């Protein structure tokens, strides 16, 4: 067996280099941990994300109600189903107002248009408005704003329906 001879000097140099690389990697890990987005200081540990929107009968068919605190719109479709639509435009994150006269959402930033289902009627928005989960219990509409559901377009099974209907 032929062994390459490593002098003590080069061995120690390599050792120092290796340790240096390890120390640098540790430093990077520390930086990453330090800068990772954290929970805001003021927020409680387990923030309540479920918003009680109200009784089913409070919402007329074909109407859209804004919930400022939850940052969503509750849309009641013509067939009685409920959708909780994010108010954030999927194009560049502007807040989309509901224009009730025209029965559609019109983004003021780059004039994307969405219908009551959140579907894109007019670009540049690339996909339908995000959804939040709607749960109907005892005829009360609850919206879980903790989970944002991304989608490309509206499908009928995305809506939640009250039991009797």
């Amino acid at each position, binding site marked *: 067996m032929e062994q390459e001879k490593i002098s003590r000097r080069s061995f120690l140099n390599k050792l120092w280099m290796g340790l240096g690389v390890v120390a640098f990697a540790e430093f990077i890990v520390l930086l990453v941990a330090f*800068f*990772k*987005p*954290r929970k*805001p200081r*003021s927020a409680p540990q387990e923030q309540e994300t479920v918003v009680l929107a109200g009784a089913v009968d409070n919402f007329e068919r074909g109407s859209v109600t804004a919930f*400022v605190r939850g*940052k969503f719109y509750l849309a009641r479709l013509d067939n009685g189903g409920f959708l909780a639509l994010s*108010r*954030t435009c999927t*194009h*560049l*994150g*502007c*807040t*989309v*107002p509901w224009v009730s006269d025209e029965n559609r959402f019109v*983004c*003021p*930033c*780059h*004039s994307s248009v969405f219908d009551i289902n959140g579907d*894109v009627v*007019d*670009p*540049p*928005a*690339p*996909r339908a408005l995000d959804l939040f989960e709607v749960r109907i219990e005892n005829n009360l509409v609850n919206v879980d704003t903790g989970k944002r559901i991304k989608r490309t377009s509206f499908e009928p099974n995305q809506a939640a329906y009250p039991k009797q209907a």
Partner: protein
Amino acid sequence: MKIFQSVRSSIRSGSPYAGNDPDDPRKYLKNFLLHFRPTAVPERALSFTLTWALGLASTVLLVLLMASGFLLKFVYEPTPVYAYDSIVHLGRDVPFGQLLRNMHRWSGYALLMTAFLHLLRVFYTSAFHAPRQFNWIIGLGLFTVIVLSNFTGYLLPWDQISYWAITISTSLLDYVPWIGTTIKSWILGGPEPGPATLMNFYAIHTAVLPVMLLFALPFHFWRIRKANGIVIQRAPDEELPLPLPMVNTVPHLVSREIAMTFVVLAAILAVSMVFNAPLAEQANPGMSPNPTKAPWYFMGIQEILMHFHPLFAALIIPATLTAGLLYLPYISYDADTRGVWFCSRKGRKLAFLAAVVAIALTVGLVLLDDLVLSVNTPSPPNLVRNGLLPFLAMLAIGTGVYALARRRLAASKNEAVQAVFTLVMVSFITLTVIGIWFRGAGMQLMWAG
């Protein structure tokens, strides 16, 4: 008082090189600031029509920005609740507070422009050729830091303009595949702009970027000395008479620099006395203003976004341009055109031609897309139709201009590369102008000056 004399002489100690001759320029080696400079410079390096004092103006503006920024730090509070109020307080209650804010704002914008013009000057005088290749790269780095400084500072007033400009600018990152959304949430400190965003931007704006500038700028200057000073302006086909006649840095260069420093300070002061820095209502995350625009220096990118698939507008086009700028000094050019404006007379004609073509083409294509193509196909942007195809068309135009200049017009490589650079730069400037002044409510094409 003997003590004062001995303290004074301890500060201005004698240099081992300097004699007692008052006319010996080496006596300035005693001076801390002047010892960064050579004692003598070529007389022709003083030519104003080479540099237009753009590097000096940028440096002066940087010092002014740091000085005014220090003062602003004593008033500003980086929290969403108080940021806006502290800016209002600054303008209303603090003596000269509004003037101070105006100076900081206009100096920041002016620095962007002088640095950009400096970049153009260096390019069009071939001053980025060897041995100054790497200083071009450092300069691009400095320019990036300046843009980021402007961008992070833009959010700090926390008004409707700044909040939504930062919202849409950072939302561009969502279109960068795989890592974009993660990077965005790191920059913002969460999914959307909030208290963490303001803290991040404040720290980056007032500590990270200024320190980066303070380290990189002396490096930039030192490389100029390593290259034996700035490039010497000469007429096309002129051979430089060597050795060049030299003049003493003091007073010939320094007096010119002091004069230009005062011109810059006076200009900023005059503008700041007349025009107030914009401040809209306090930021309201529930209501986007119409139209919402990115900061003006990103309007070119926003305009590209109006016509291209976001993946191309946010990532592929900026990455291609950046790679091109980095590669420029390392192309093997076939002529030594250092110090000659636009390489040659033919180069000047070609560059002018390229600029005209760029303006006509950009305006024409924007109108075509807005008035014809988008109206007929109102559907979400498609990766091939709105991304790949127009991008390849742009590449083809660039390559076509290069080939045309080389083959048909028998241009040198320097002149042909210059023509393509001009095409791209003037197109980008045209897009920026369209975005700033010709996009109104709903981002419709109209006069919106």
